[in-house]
């Protein structure tokens, strides 16, 4: 390894340490668009802005934009954002079915500072969407702790195992951190 290489490697290692803390492989289908996290491969963003939802951050800001991985509800999401695939942040794309089984995260709404229970339901029955892959891995546990593992394909049972995308539904206020 040449001296320049060595120097470059060091610098970049340092950089990496302070930049990305997002973990890597999500569920299988999510692979397709994972490269979104490549610096040179920006996620295709929707052109149209939408009206701010009451009580939620300005959709022009990342924390308020359901097409952005930084959207506040996505704090423990893992997969393709349904809102980039024909659905919204809380409804599945046409022709898919929402899995009744799910894993749950607790995310803080920057507007009211409260922590909400967010249910991450998978949209199932069509092959992987391929757009807006997003994974934020906080509190993820191995597969043998199913309710807390984001490596599991939650499409199962009647809706079948084919994974398409994921929604984030507010199902209540967190009683713990609320």
């Amino acid at each position, binding site marked *: 390894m040449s001296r320049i290489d060595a120097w470059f490697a060091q610098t970049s290692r340092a950089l990496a340490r302070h930049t990305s803390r997002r973990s890597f492989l999500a569920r299988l289908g999510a*692979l*397709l*668009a*994972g*490269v*979104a996290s*490549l610096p*040179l*491969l*920006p*996620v*295709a963003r*929707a*052109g*149209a802005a939408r009206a701010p939802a009451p*009580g*939620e951050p300005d959709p022009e800001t990342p924390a308020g934009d359901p097409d952005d991985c930084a959207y506040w509800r996505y704090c423990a999401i893992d997969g393709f954002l349904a809102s*980039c*695939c*024909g*659905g*919204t942040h*809380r*409804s*599945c*794309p*046409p*022709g*898919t*079915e*929402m899995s*009744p*089984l799910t894993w749950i995260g607790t995310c803080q*709404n920057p*507007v*009211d500072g*409260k922590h*909400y*229970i967010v*249910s991450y*339901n998978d*949209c199932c029955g*069509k*092959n*992987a*969407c*391929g*757009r807006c*892959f997003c994974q934020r891995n906080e509190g993820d546990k191995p597969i043998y702790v199913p309710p807390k593992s984001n490596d599991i394909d939650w499409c199962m*049972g009647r809706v079948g195992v084919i994974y*398409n995308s994921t*929604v984030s*539904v*507010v*199902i*209540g*206020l*967190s*009683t713990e951190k*609320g």
Partner: protein
Amino acid sequence: MRARRRGAFAFRIAFSGLLSALLIAGLAHAELPVETTGQVESLPATLGPHWAWAADAVLRRTALVDLESGRTLGTLDGGFGITSGLFPTRRREIYLPETHYSRGSRGERTDVVTIYDAANLLPIAEVRIPPARAFNTLVAGNASLSDDDRFVAVFNYTPATSLSIVDVQNRTFVAELATPGCSLAYAAGPRRFASLCADGALLTLSLDAAGRESGRQRSEPFFDPAKDPITEKGVRLGDTWLFVSFEGLVHPVDVSGPAPRFGERWSLLDSADRREGWRIGGQQHLAIHEATGRLYSLVHQGGADTHKQAGTELWVYDVAQRRRVQRIELRGPGFTYLGVPIGFDWPWPFSRIPDWLIRFSPDLGVGLVAVTQDAQPLLVTGSNFSGALAIYDALSGDFLRRVAPGNMTTVGIQTPWAGVEAPR
């Protein structure tokens, strides 16, 4: 199995318990309203004229994209081959010929025409057809919908040639009609289909109200497949099919009458164009805008046998006047890595890299073009080795934007919903 069911049951109980607990908490204190799970979107009531279906060979699907917002609206998985739908005007449905194997790439083969609800992209019916569908690189021509929206003809190649007739209104398979020596299916009247024959003739098959063969005509050869064959990528203007030969000659075929009438040929290329080596070419090299009678043709500079080479320019013709009215310098659709667009927002000069590359490497060029049929038509162009699409104003020829539906490749573009104005 008992174990599993018991477990699932237990899990659901526990889970719904948790849920209701949370819901109560939610109702008690939440600033944000508690939302319900299970919601699935449907498409807007008006099927947009500025929506396009883009087929992907790797993901074996077609994706519906809004050409204005760039949003992906939904997808249809199609099994083996190019996923290419048929779109009736009288019913809010989509007909999709599909082929599946019981073990993925092996096992028992099943061919079907699936009827999808165009409002929610769910399959609502399925008609089994003989496991004989032809597989090739055509986007259109392997299956066709009769002008009365009643019958679908699916082209079979085994290597014997035939058409499977499906009654999509009654959801039944009607018959398989042999078309010896002739291939493909083009709608040619309320209940008639046309096929192209190896000797340059046209075979027309008429159906009765039940979909049975009521007559067939085989024309004299209207072109010479040995000397200058027409491509299978014909486009339709009213009752006239326009086929273009390797050498750029337009062969009009009027199917309004009882027998097809073969109109006078005219050339897309003048002697100067030929001197400069311009040729037609591409997997989907023709598009037509009915209202204005404009024909769009992908062209490139190349030698013999380049009839499948992608285009560097898009030439626009007034069909009535049979003359070229515009030359559009093509932009590169851009690249996608595993479906993710690369450098759509790079600054100049990097933003032009795709445009330069399509000229350096024709294999990367623009091989597909389609046009929407509304009054403010958009041109949609694609390249086989990218999932990205480049959008132009079809009247001015101005490049507007790039969109990426999440595909890895583009092997077909369809713009079916032209009838209605887009909601503004």
